[in-house]
């Protein structure tokens, strides 16, 4: 399997995608903005379609669209991103725009499926380079702003009063999220990116209460999903994003069951102690 260039590229990309999903996913889940993340990936889809239509690269189109939305939401207030009506509205408008741009650009419909669901066959060396470069950029910014982002994400109300430049930190987070979505879309597709940004971190929080362990576990769960997904996709010729979502769903199911059983156990010990 590894004799093919695109498989090697995909496995290598998986490492970097897991690293940024480990960092960003932990914060996304802490902020309880999973649905907004979903919207942002749909905005990414229309950005990619715009990129094709305008003759710039789909990646650049995605970055422009998601960054602009991130900035808009950041400036107009985080609360907007939690309002269900505005989320539905944005999702709808941007999917519509995506379809419009695709039809205007006269590309075949399989281009749309590529953007929406990802494609491992399509990965080129230059894709890998841009992914690694942008991932390193995200990791570097998160490293410098780590404590500020952690405070801003895990204690939304406290940081609002006690952290300097808290609004700027929120905007920085949304821009980082926009970038993460744009670059991970290449493998898993814009429609399913939010799976990697929400499910592994949601599972990880049932296993540990330490921030760093949470990030580590999230990264591990993402990498497991991507690598095993790639292997299964290679052997079965089924879409990789199907396997990735399935694996993440299984991990989450296991985490939830363990959590449930532990809770039952604890309740049992407590009642026997009484």
């Amino acid at each position, binding site marked *: 399997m590894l004799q093919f260039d695109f498989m090697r590229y995909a496995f290598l990309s998986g490492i970097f995608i897991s690293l940024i999903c480990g960092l960003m996913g932990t914060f996304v889940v802490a902020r309880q903005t999973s649905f907004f993340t979903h919207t942002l990936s749909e905005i990414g889809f229309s950005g990619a379609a715009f990129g094709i239509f305008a003759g710039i690269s789909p990646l650049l189109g995605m970055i422009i669209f998601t960054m602009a939305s991130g900035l808009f939401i950041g400036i107009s207030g985080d609360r907007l991103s939690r309002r269900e009506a505005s989320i539905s509205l944005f999702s709808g408008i941007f999917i519509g725009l995506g379809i419009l741009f695709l039809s205007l650009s006269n590309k075949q419909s399989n281009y749309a499926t590529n953007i929406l669901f990802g494609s491992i066959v399509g990965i080129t060396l230059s894709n890998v380079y841009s992914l690694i470069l942008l991932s390193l950029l995200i990791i570097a910014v998160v490293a410098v702003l780590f404590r500020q982002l*952690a405070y801003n994400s*895990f204690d939304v*109300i*406290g940081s609002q009063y*006690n952290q*300097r430049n808290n609004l700027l930190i929120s905007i920085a987070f949304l821009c980082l999220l926009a970038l993460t979505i744009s670059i991970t879309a290449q493998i898993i597709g814009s429609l399913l990116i939010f799976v990697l940004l929400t499910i592994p971190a949601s599972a990880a*929080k049932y296993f540990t*209460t330490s921030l760093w362990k*949470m990030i580590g576990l999230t990264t591990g769960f993402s990498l497991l999903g991507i690598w095993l997904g790639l292997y299964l996709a290679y052997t079965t010729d089924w879409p990789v994003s199907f396997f990735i979502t399935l694996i993440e769903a299984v991990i989450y199911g296991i985490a939830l069951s363990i959590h449930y059983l532990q809770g039952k156990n604890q309740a049992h010990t407590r009642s026997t102690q009484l």
Partner: protein
Amino acid sequence: MKTIIEVKDLNLSVPEKQLFKQLSFSVPANKLTCMTGENGVGKTTLAKYLLRSFTKDDQHIKFAVKRTQVQYVPQLRNIDDEFPLSIHDFVALGLHRSHFLWHSRNERQLLKKVLAETQLANIQKEALGAASGGEKQRAFLAQALCAEPKLLILDEATASLDKDAKHKLLQLISKQVAEKDITVLFITHDNELIARYADYELILSAQQGKLIERERATDAAI
């Protein structure tokens, strides 16, 4: 008397309601002052306005401290049962000024000291979401203390606590005031706590404020 906040002739209103008219008061430094008043009189609004006034250069308000030396502990926090972080990691969020990934030796020592002072050391590894109301409030206090504030504003920190937890929290806070260079402004309307712990009471009513000195009631008096 040394003061930490001085307010002079402040008018404050929210849409369709004048909260304060020509409000003047001062908050004594190094003391525990309880800010009291009926519901809706504007205690929280005033506290938040005071915090915002740092950036606006308001001529009606003078602080003897910098904004970074003030910590505000809000009444409501969105910490639900599934909140993922341990008490230790939540309190450590208060060390948010540095850009280093790891805590320095000094920061670790400060964290250890604060956790001990707030009696959280034994349960620091437990999930904050599963902690009791009193433990949560102590964790909020501990997080604020990590910033080593000169002025601490607590908004109804005891509102949802039972009697024991309330007294435990206020004893910890009084001890901080006695031992450190710290001023506490505590928004409350719990008469029992005011009688027992307040050095001063700032009474807000009818758009005005009045500061009175309190004699602390002893155990026997309650």
